Structures are given as C-alpha cells and as structure tokens.
C-alpha cells in the first residue's frame, strides 16, 4: 500500500514544468519549500499535497480537452483523461485509508474544480499544533490589594503543585 503513495522526496515543486497554481495550500498556508521529511506530520501533508496536485493537473487537462475539441470528436481523449483522474483519485483514497488509523483527516476545499486548500488535522495534535498529551500551562494575573499594615516584603505566598485533574471546588476529603 505504501508503494502507491506519492513519494515525498519527489517534491514536484523542484521539478521542471511545475504548475504552482495546481499545488494546494495546507490549512490556509503555502507548504514550506523545504519540508522536513523526518517530521511525520509534515511528510503526510506533503504526500497529500502531491496527491491533490496530481488531481488538479489531471482535471485541468480534462478541461483543456473539453475546451479545445468539439463534443462529438473528443470522446477518446476525454475518456483517457477521465481514467487518469480516476487513477489519481484511487491513489488519494489509498493515502486516506493508510493514514486514517493514525487519525489524519485531510479535506480539500475546492474552487473552480480545483483543490486550492487542504484542511488537515492529525491524530497526535490539536488544531493548534500542540501535542495532545502535552501539559498545558495557564497563567493568570489577578490584582489583589494588600492590607495597609502588610508590606510586600513580608508577604509570603505558598503555591501548591498540581495533584489531580478535578475541579478546584473539591477541597473536601472524599473517599
């Protein structure tokens, strides 16, 4: 199955004849020119971007056939192009299937028949890009006026560390 995947080391952007208008953005941003292939999510993004780049190119070629030739003479060329699109779609599907168990969702946003942006989410990250298991640090500033007879130097604050994830209202000992 992996063999059918677009090869991320064959980035079409480095190849002659690259059509930049067919290369989709990912989550609203252009993919970095140099993708770190050791980063799993970056590699997956590139694989999907290549898959949709192929689809966009094939679709553009289909439109060209339809625009160039009259309807009654283009049957063979049209069918050939449709089959190429079909093959690209199957490769895209295999990619989706392979990464589905990893929690990867990639959905194209279309404009004029082309996938212009890929909305991607990963099983190991929140939408913000933070690891799911990462600890969250929250900081809040709350101004508290000191009593008149206490100076800041004499004021001692003890901070307890986190113990368990239950709401702070549970101060009472429970079973």
């Amino acid at each position: 199955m992996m063999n059918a995947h677009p090869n991320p080391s064959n980035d079409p952007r480095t190849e002659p004849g690259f059509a930049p208008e067919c290369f989709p953005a990912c989550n609203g941003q252009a993919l970095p020119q140099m993708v770190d292939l050791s980063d799993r999510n970056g590699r997956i993004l590139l694989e999907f971007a290549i898959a949709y780049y192929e689809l966009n190119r094939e679709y553009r070629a289909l439109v060209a056939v339809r625009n160039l030739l009259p309807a009654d003479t283009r049957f063979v060329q049209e069918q050939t192009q449709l089959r190429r699109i079909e093959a690209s779609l199957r490769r895209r599907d295999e990619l989706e299937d392979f990464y589905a168990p990893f929690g990867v969702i990639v959905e194209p946003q279309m404009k004029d028949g082309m996938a212009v942006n890929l909305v991607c989410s990963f099983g190991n990250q929140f939408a913000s890009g933070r690891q799911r298991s990462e600890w969250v640090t929250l900081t809040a500033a709350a101004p508290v006026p000191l009593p008149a007879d206490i100076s800041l130097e004499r004021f001692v604050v003890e901070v307890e560390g986190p113990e368990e994830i239950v709401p702070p209202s549970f101060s009472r000992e429970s079973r």
Partner: protein
Amino acid sequence: MRRLILTNFQAPGDIVMLTAAVRDLHAAYPRRFQTDVRTSCPDLWRHNPYLTALDLEEKQTEVIRCHYPLIQQSNRRPLHFLHGFTEYLNEQLGLNFQPTLFKGDIHLSDDEKRAPSLVEEITGVKVPYWILVAGGKYDYTIKWWHTRRWQSVVDELRGRVLFVQVGEAHHYHPGLNGVIDLRSRTGLRDLIRLVYSAQGVLCPVTLLMHLAAAVEPAPDAPPSRPCVVVAGGRESPHWEAYPTHQFLHRVGTLPCCATGGCWRSRSVPLGDEDAHDRPEALCVNTVENLPRCMADIKTEEVVAKVELYLDGFRLPQLSPLQFSEIEPFLRRRTDWERGGANPPLTCNPPPTPGKHACQASPLNHEIKTYA
C-alpha cells in the same frame, strides 16, 4: 437521612452509568438518602428526580468519588457495566442494591419532548432518521471502524434511511457524504433531544450507545430504540451490550480476544507520547493498521442489522418525496457540482434513492467522491 455527593469526572458514557446507579440506589432504599452529584456532564442530570441540591462544605454530607473497579473482572464475571458503580457504592456504603433496569437514567422535560427534533428544525420536514457516529476519541482509536465503511453503509441505505452524523469537534469524525452533518454542532442536551426523536442509532462503543438505551423512546416509536453497535473485540459483550441492541463483536472468534475483550487502546501509535501509545496498549492483531476485529466486520453485516430493525418493527422509511425534501441538506464532500463552473466529470443520471450514485459507470468513483 444520609446525604451523599457522588463525584466522577470521566467520559459522558461513564456518567450515564452513574445515573443508573443513583436511580437504583433510591429504588432499593427509598427515603434513606439524599443524593447530589458533581460530574463532568451536568447536562446528563438535568430533570433528574433523584437529585437534591447539597452543599459540599456541609459537614454531614459524605463525598464519594465514584469508580468502577469491577471493570477489572469484566472478562471473567457475568456482569454488565451497569453493575460497575452499583457494586462500588455497595462497598462504600455497606449496602446491597442491584441494577433494576437495563439502561441508564436520562430525563427530558415535557418541553424537550414536545419540541420539534433538530432535524426537523434544520430541514423543516418531520422525517425518520438515524444518528450516526463515525469516529471517536483519540485515546481509544481501536474502537474506530473505517470511514469508508461507514460511508458504504450510508450509501447502501441512501434514499431509505436518513443519517445524521454527530461527533465532538476535537475528536476524530471525518465527514461523510449524504448525511445531515451535525458534527461539533450538538451539546449534550441537543444530543439527548436528538436521540429522543431518532428512529435508531448506529455507532461504535461510545456514549451514543448508552444514550440509545437510556433515553426513553418517543410515544410513536418501538418500546426499545434500535441501535447497531460496531464493537469488534475490545470489550466483552456481556459487559457492554444492551439486550435490545445489535452488538457486532468478535470476542471469542480471534486469538487476541478469545476469552474476553482485549481492552487495548489503539491500533497504531499516534505519536503523541500518550500512555495509550505504549506497546502493551496497542492492538496485536491488525490488518492494514486496522484492528482485525473491526476490519472483519463488513458493511453488509451492518446494513443487514439496520434492516433487521426496519423490517422487524416495520419502521417508516424515507419516501421519495421526503428524500427530495431533505436532499438539499445532505453533506457533500466538495462543491464540485454545485460550483457550476465546471461540467460534471461524467454524464450519469442523478442518484436514485436506494442506489449508489453512478453505479453503472466504470468511472463512478470520481463522482462518488467529488460530487
């Protein structure tokens, strides 16, 4: 009268089980307890007649953090999840009560029951529908069935059964075609209302399965709500399944779950450094990265179970008119056809109810995914 505050901050499905324990405690010991709860899902307790507002700081109030250690014996002992909190409370309080009903205890107000369903609010049409959960949380990915198979079920029943896809925004719920898409658009209370009016529920082992049993059926519905659960081999069926549900499992048919549920977490590591990625938490029997127990469950099997209910109860199915009325509200993966700028890839007729789109064409695949 003893005053208890029961606490639990686990997932909503666990809390539904706790609602059953509270009901059964009062059934066995009427007027012996006043109970209140602090849980992660207050919405599951709305309109619950067994709750009394109790003060956490009051000295006479006992606070019990509820667990269900019984789960550790779930592969050996003939017990259901419903026994979990019950047995724990029995131990903690020195009681001896048992589950009285095979379901959780979720209550709706009369207004909620009278209100039109969310589907009717959206489409303007009162139509029968099934709720579909085609994914789940990231901690137990082993419960996921494949998206394409969920899609096949929807396609197979297109024109007869309307599916409403639900799921939480931060969980894994890839969008399906041909469904009413309510992913990330339902709070817990909406979900309860949605279940109340639903003809059936189709899901993996998840909250919706428990709600399907716990939420009373509408007056014109069968006495038990149809529910098909794609379960695999993670949990022992006697622990998890409800008797009126069609629970598709593989326990006892595979070496990895030969004598009970495997209770593992993930089919493949997600790479999030979570404890669920540890080798001992991973599935040991995968097929193309899917748990074998889930991969073995075929689309036809699920469709057949849905049809069992449809035929057995003679449940109303979508009429052609109803289908045409709700079709504009069904999700499409892209706006390929709707954009209008491009001719469709092939010239097949529009999909007819009960048939796959463009079945006859060798090039149907592109239409199915793009249209």
